[in-house]
């Protein structure tokens, strides 16, 4: 079983999987909306109109207006961009750091492994929300801090996964062969191990993107996240909750939009998992 073939077959399975297709459609349509909103929307995301606050959905404002008279649909699209960038950035950072830690720990084992995983377990045991909150208080509010908080929350997930997969892969024949041939550990990690563990990490990544958005929403919900006047999905839900009974559409429609995006991400993640399934089972059993 050479590393190259695994990815070739996987991509085909993924591409034709119906679930993944559905997810892909959702995400692609969201990205299109984000790219085109600047052209298609007559409103800016921060255009306040104090004469039209909390108007119901109408032809002029398909999602209605918020408490500053800003068009909700426009802000939802811009907000989706902001939230996705924040979540993506945080996940990439957390994923890289966590994977590196996990791979090193799984490869070399021994004391390094024991101590590192203890710290990782500690981080993992800490309540997510409180950890994120303390980080926000420390770093100050704003998009960058939210990304860092998401990264921190996800490091343990990636570390644990990478470690267990690396430890399992290390026992494989081709890895032993490479070590016997005298290849440097870094080369082995990058050339032999990484391609084979990349797929589950990707699944973790796609699942994490959705949760990253929810975490950002939760932090902005209590006012700790993105700074005004920048919209984000969490900021919009926070605004919507303040006026929920007067204008339930703001919170409801924003929540539905969030669910829509996360649904797309989850479907893609599912498709990935389905595509991996044969390979996964063979590797882990």
């Amino acid at each position, binding site marked *: 079983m050479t590393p190259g073939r695994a990815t070739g077959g996987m991509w085909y399975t993924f591409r034709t999987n119906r679930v993944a297709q559905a997810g892909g459609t959702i995400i692609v349509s969201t990205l299109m909306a984000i790219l085109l909103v600047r052209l298609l929307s007559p409103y800016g995301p921060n255009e306040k109109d104090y004469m039209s606050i909390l108007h119901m959905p109408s032809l002029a404002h398909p999602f209605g207006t918020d408490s500053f008279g800003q068009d909700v649909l426009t802000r939802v699209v811009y907000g989706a961009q902001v939230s996705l960038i924040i979540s993506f950035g945080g996940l990439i950072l957390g994923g890289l750091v966590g994977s590196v830690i996990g791979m090193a720990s799984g490869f070399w084992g021994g004391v390094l492994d024991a101590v590192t995983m203890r710290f990782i377990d500690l981080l993992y045991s800490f309540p997510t929300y*409180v950890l994120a*909150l303390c*980080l926000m208080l420390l770093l100050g509010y704003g998009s960058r801090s939210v990304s860092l908080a998401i990264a921190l929350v996800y490091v343990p997930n990636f570390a644990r996964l990478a470690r267990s997969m690396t430890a399992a892969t290390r026992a494989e024949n081709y890895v032993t062969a490479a070590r016997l041939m005298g290849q440097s550990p870094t080369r082995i990690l990058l050339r032999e191990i990484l391609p084979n563990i990349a797929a589950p990490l990707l699944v973790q990544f796609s699942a994490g993107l959705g949760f990253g958005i929810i975490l950002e929403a939760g932090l902005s919900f*209590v006012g700790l996240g993105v700074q005004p006047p920048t919209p984000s999905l969490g900021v919009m839900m926070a605004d919507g909750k303040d006026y929920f009974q007067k204008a339930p559409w703001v919170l409801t429609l924003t929540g539905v939009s969030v669910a829509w995006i996360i*649904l797309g991400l*989850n479907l893609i993640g599912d498709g990935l998992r389905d595509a991996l399934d044969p390979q996964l089972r063979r590797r882990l059993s």
Partner: protein
Amino acid sequence: MIGSFAMLVVGAAVVFLLLHAIPGDAAIAALGDSASPDAIAAFRAQHHLNDPLAVQFWSWAQAALTGDLGQSISLAGGFSTAALIAGSLPNTLFVGAYALILAIAISLAGGSIAASRHGRIEDVLATSGAIVTISLPDFWLGYVLVLVFSLGFGWFPAYGFTRPGDSLAGAFHSGFLPALAIAVPMAGILSRMLRATLLETFRRAYVVSAHAMGFGRFFIFWHYVLRNALIPYVTAIGLQARYLLGGVVVIERVFGVPGVGSVMVDAAFARDYGVVQGCAVVFLLIVIATNLLVDTICGLLDPRRTA
């Protein structure tokens, strides 16, 4: 054992350093906007806030080892941290357990049905439902539930939680909506996990041969399939524990459940370090205990499994 203890100490130290790095201090939180400079100075002196960090941590740690988690200084002055935690932890545990039971009930049913009717309409419905519920932000769901079932039908209170100590029936009644808001996304995750492991177990060699040997379908399901599929399922439940403790803070806020997550968050805002550390230690203890419990249950389910 030593490892766990070391984890606790390191965890407390990390929290301590993190908190002290945050700007602002307990004096301003406690004294508010009547905080004249000498009132602040007096407060700091009284609570040893000017001592070197190592000294402050050491005196906290020493007391904590003997079980004295100290007092709150800027959140609820004079009340012992233990009292704050003891007053709020049961509420979080109650709502968490309530949510877990609901999630387990829903996911056991949903996951089993979806797996046994694999590929048919029940499966598609259950799976789609599960994916959608995972995608919902739980606090948003909480608000919608309040709108429909509390302000709409009036079946449940819109806010406020009756403690189990005061009235068990009241606790179940007032705790239903928050528990449901937490349970629904969790049920989605668990039912998908259960479905996947069930499907996998169905195809295992020993199950196929049991069928071939003519054992009853229900017997096979119960003894061969479920017991093996439950192991990853139970592990997944254990992983939810850390979310149930601290991740449900926003739900607690929306519904007014005076839980330990809220105490920790408010203490962090008030820079009441002792309380945050006390809560952190308690959290870690609970997570460690939960992991032990999960391992034990998994061991019971499958006698062949080793640590």
